[in-house]
């Protein structure tokens, strides 16, 4: 997705996007039902290493991407910590009620958010949308009309960002009257949306003019198949999960195994 940054292609880039997505979804669901903080901490360390070493981006950008996730970690952890229910009170101050249970739960939530974020980041940093949608069409039988609409939409993102600038320029050049905040929001939102709709309509017409049709059989410019990298990916993910469980039973950080 981040076209403009130069990155090194790693084995993660070469895994099949559909497989990658499905595996990550499974881990996501696994984590939803995971209540042992020890395993979760190990898992996030494992994913963090994967993110840091194998996404192929320069260190500077990795840190930059990671920063917001840290904030999320803190903010997710804090609201549960400060207002949760529990029996072992640590601090009570007005509405704020910190208990041991709520603290642990808060930390668990923080790590959970971190895991989700890392999964997503690893995926989006190592997957070109074009390959993703070609793979979805070939492996998961996504209908071409959806896939190409998404691709056209992705192509429009930079154009739409420019359009925002354009609207701003037009208002400057033509002069703008005084107006309230809501009025201002609409002043930008309406032209941006209506322009996007028009553009979408024109592109749809152009696509049909190029004989795009949902009915006829089509060939694919990129054939996305499976390779040894997919095995590698599968095994490393399973490895990380098994190691997390193993380490959690052998060297637990905290003596709690269920935060509920």
């Amino acid at each position, binding site marked *: *997705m*981040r076209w403009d940054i130069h990155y090194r292609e790693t084995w993660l880039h070469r895994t099949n996007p559909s497989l990658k997505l499905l595996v*990550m979804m499974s881990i*996501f669901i696994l984590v*939803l039902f995971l209540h042992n903080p020890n395993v979760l901490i190990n898992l996030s360390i494992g994913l963090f290493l994967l993110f840091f070493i194998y996404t192929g981006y320069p260190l500077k950008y990795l840190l930059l*991407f990671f920063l*917001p*996730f840290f904030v*999320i970690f803190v*903010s997710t952890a*804090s*609201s*549960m910590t*400060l*207002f*949760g*229910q529990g029996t072992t009170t640590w601090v009570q101050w007005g*509405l704020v*009620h910190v208990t041991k249970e*709520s603290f642990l*739960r808060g930390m668990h*939530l923080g790590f*959970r*958010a971190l895991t*989700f*974020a890392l*999964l*997503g*980041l690893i*995926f*989006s*940093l190592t997957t070109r*949308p074009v390959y993703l949608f070609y793979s979805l069409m070939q492996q998961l039988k996504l209908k071409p*009309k*959806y896939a190409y*609409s*998404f691709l*056209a*939409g*992705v192509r*429009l*993102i930079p154009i*739409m*960002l420019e359009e925002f600038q354009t609207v701003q320029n037009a208002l400057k050049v033509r002069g703008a009257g005084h107006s309230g905040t809501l009025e201002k929001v*609409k002043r930008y939102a*309406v032209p*941006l*949306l*209506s322009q*996007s*709709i*028009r*553009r*979408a*309509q024109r*592109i*749809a017409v152009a696509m*049909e003019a190029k004989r*795009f049709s*949902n009915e006829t059989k089509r060939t694919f410019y990129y054939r996305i198949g499976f390779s040894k990298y997919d095995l590698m990916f599968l095994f490393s993910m399973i490895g990380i999960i098994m190691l997390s469980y193993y380490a959690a039973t052998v060297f637990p950080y905290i003596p709690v195994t269920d935060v509920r």
Partner: protein
Amino acid sequence: MQTTKGLKLADILTTIVISIVFGIVYKLWGPFYYFVKPFGLHVDQLIYGMWFIAATVAFLIIRKPGVALLAEIAASSGEFIMGSEWGLEVLLYGVVQGLFAEAAFAAFRYKQFDVFVVSLAAIGSTIGSLIMDFYKGYIEALAPWNLALFLLARFVGAVLISGVFASSLVKALEATGVTQMVRSASKEDYEQLDR
């Protein structure tokens, strides 16, 4: 006039492009959300409703079955592809929120397009998001007064943003005449050809 099954290419493309605009908004909303979150007392929940707006706006514009669900999925995919802070989570939330919004429109057989239905859809999406939160965030473990505040803020915010604001935004769009391109021509228009 065509009568193909399901959505036409132009409908899909339009829905997706609108949704990507909102995907950008969703992405920017993330930092804003966690900026207000540490204030506590669930001020953040008041603005949560923004994440349901793609479904209601897209449906109001295109007015066809399936659009609300597609829009919410597309917007969250857009957010995801741009590197959302919540990562994969947003995709699942998108699907669930979209399904619930779609259900609200379906309950009226896709024939009603006023503030009331969209507000209902917004409430639907809120319920969807709460179901997800239930699994993910242990919200049931919050102190009762706090949970009540949390729920109230989220519902009110959703109705205000994805219900009321969304429908006034589409009203403004209709004034530009762009929605006319999207919806099919009426019978009277065809009849006038014979004058």
